């Protein structure tokens, strides 16, 4: 993406001048659209970029909490307990995970991220007692070493898939899709296929990697049930098995994931990030995180398995309020990806000059596929990677995770809850009709939930 994508909503001096001149920009053919058309015409290639959906969609911002007052007691902040720990995977696994906080680090590969970035994520998450996740490309020994609790992603490409790594993982996440591209496979462009990355993935150095979008040895939920049984046999029924889906039909996908034998279902909304995907895919396929959670929860409740099969939600989690809102809607935990990269320094204003040199700007940079990240995160370039101090990065991740947790606790106590998982839809109202319909909570100040008849 180029700087022509800068938004037009905030009037710039240039826009003011244009308005004074009586010029009118088309809402349909705005400057970003014009730039996209011209880029396509000039190159014959679609735009590939990182990050998740950038369009505005109904989100957690459109929800508010109803704090305690007359009819409910709040809890004393800093004095009365508000528990944050969560057990994941106790449906079938003999060794479920017990995390201290309900905020996990989503799957991001070594390859997409630098080794230093992976180390920082592992160190930071381990410091606050939560898990990290591998990605497309397998597990590195460093990653296993840095993460106290490591979830191994079992992906269609099976790059670097090794039963030894499955056996030394703490949980296995069978990935069917991700929110940025439900129905799409991974991508890693040649700039990032260094010798080490290529060797891990059994690919020629420097090629543009196109990963498979479907698993090679099973099709559909009946096969998946047998596949999950295989993974359990391999690990002697010790490890929790997650199924991750990109949010598109979360009610059916969740029900089928449960039927296939998942201990944990991960639902990733369209704001969830990616390291490299076609922009047309990111912006036009999948549904918002807010719309996905109640449907996934409904499936679990109808099966009598809500809280027994745990639900992890990701896609656009930024603050403790987002954590609390996702959990109030019924999630047992959340996962963060983009926010964690930002905590590490991604899109920091201190790199403004370098972003500008790449044709971008701090706050807009999304060319994760290029491998030229000034912050040293989405790159395999040794000089750029060296800019990210993994110890300092780990400290920043731990700080951020602590803030998310304390913010969520602040809200939970205000709602009178002694455990984050006691938050419930009844604690929420919506600011817009759309959010009310998706979240299935009343429009603020009313008892109206669109789609229900009273």
């Amino acid at each position: 993406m180029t700087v022509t994508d800068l938004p037009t909503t905030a009037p710039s001096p240039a826009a003011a001048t244009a308005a004074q001149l009586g010029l009118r920009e088309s809402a349909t053919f705005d400057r970003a659209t014009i730039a996209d058309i011209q880029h396509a015409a000039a190159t014959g290639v679609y735009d590939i970029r990182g990050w998740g959906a950038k369009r505005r969609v109904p989100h957690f911002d459109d929800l508010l909490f109803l704090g305690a007052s007359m009819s409910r007691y709040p809890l004393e902040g800093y004095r009365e307990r508000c528990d944050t720990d969560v057990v994941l995977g106790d449906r079938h696994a003999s060794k479920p995970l017990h995390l201290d906080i309900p905020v996990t680090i989503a799957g991001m590969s070594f390859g997409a991220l630098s080794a230093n970035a992976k180390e920082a994520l592992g160190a930071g998450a381990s410091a606050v007692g939560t898990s990290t996740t591998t990605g497309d490309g397998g597990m590195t020994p460093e990653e296993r070493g840095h993460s106290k609790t490591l979830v191994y992603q079992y992906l269609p490409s099976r790059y670097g898939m090794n039963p030894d790594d499955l056996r030394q993982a703490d949980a296995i996440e069978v990935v069917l899709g991700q929110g940025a591209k439900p129905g799409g496979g991974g991508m890693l462009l040649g700039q990032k296929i260094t010798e080490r990355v290529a060797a891990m993935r059994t690919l020629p150095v420097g090629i543009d990697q196109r990963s498979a979008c479907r698993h090679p040895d099973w099709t559909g939920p009946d096969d998946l049930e047998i596949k999950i049984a295989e993974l359990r046999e391999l690990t002697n029924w010790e490890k929790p098995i997650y199924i991750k889906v990109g949010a598109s039909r979360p009610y059916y996908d969740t029900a089928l994931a449960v039927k296939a034998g998942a201990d944990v279902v991960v639902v990733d909304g369209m704001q969830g990030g990616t390291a490299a995907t076609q922009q047309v895919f990111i912006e036009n396929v999948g549904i918002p995180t807010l719309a996905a959670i109640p449907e996934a929860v409904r499936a679990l409740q109808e099966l009598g398995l809500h809280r027994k099969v745990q639900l992890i939600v990701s896609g656009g989690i930024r603050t403790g309020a987002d954590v609390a809102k996702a959990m109030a809607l019924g999630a047992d935990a959340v996962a963060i990806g983009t926010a964690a990269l930002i905590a590490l320094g991604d899109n920091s204003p201190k790199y403004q000059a370098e972003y500008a040199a790449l044709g971008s700007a701090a706050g807009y940079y999304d060319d994760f596929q290029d491998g030229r990240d000034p912050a040293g995160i989405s790159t395999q370039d040794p000089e750029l990677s060296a800019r990210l101090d993994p110890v300092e990065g780990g400290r920043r991740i731990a700080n951020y995770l602590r803030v998310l947790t304390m913010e969520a606790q602040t809200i939970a106590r205000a709602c009178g809850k002694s455990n984050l998982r006691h938050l419930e839809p009844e604690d929420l109202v919506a600011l817009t009709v759309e959010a009310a319909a998706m979240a299935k909570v009343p429009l603020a100040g009313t008892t109206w939930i669109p789609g229900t008849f009273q």
Partner: protein
Amino acid sequence: MTALAHEPAQITTETTAATEDTTVVDLAQSSVRDLNQALHDPASTSTEWLVRHPAGKHNIAVGIDRALTMTVEGNVGYFFAGMHKSADITVTGNAGQGLAENIMSGRVHVKGDASQAVAATGHGGLVVVDGNASARCGISMKGVDIVVGGNVGHMSAFMAQAGRLVVCGDAGDSLGDSLYETRIYVKGTVKSLGADCVEKEMHEEHLAELAQLLAAAGRDEDPAAFRRYGSARTLYHFHADNSAAY
């Protein structure tokens, strides 16, 4: 015959015609779980295994991680010998979907036919199917060698990255679609080649490696009767002119 070192109660060992040192597991009596747990037991020293009455059950012998020899008398279901390492296994019957998927090393030999996705994503070792293999044989293979005595179905060696696929019969549609560095040898006809898969010349080194693979699979075909197929490598980089192939 020896008992299992840590013998689960459900495993039935019996006196058979097998040799004294063979561990016999009858899946009509014992569960697949018991068999796999016994195979994974680090204390187990048994190196000769005989499995009876597999009855097409799924996930038999998944995750073996040591040198042993096993014979399975009958048919096996999905993911037989999944993620296999080191051991030498023979199945006297047919195998279901995902035979020896993601095999790392060792040898898996099926005397009958095999269903879809034989040795999918296999990283090493040798998989031999004496009969026919169905669709997507060798899909996404990453170093495994596969020798099929009969035919293979459509989309075989789809996105195959490394290793060798030998087909002594015919290949179905779209052989080697989106191939990376896997080499494919076919003795019979190829119904159609997939995107970016082309026929290549047989050189001395190819005849030599094919002879070695055929010998390892216990076959007597003449390497000179095969044709070689590989990647044209035109899809390795995104390019507007390749858009029809994407």
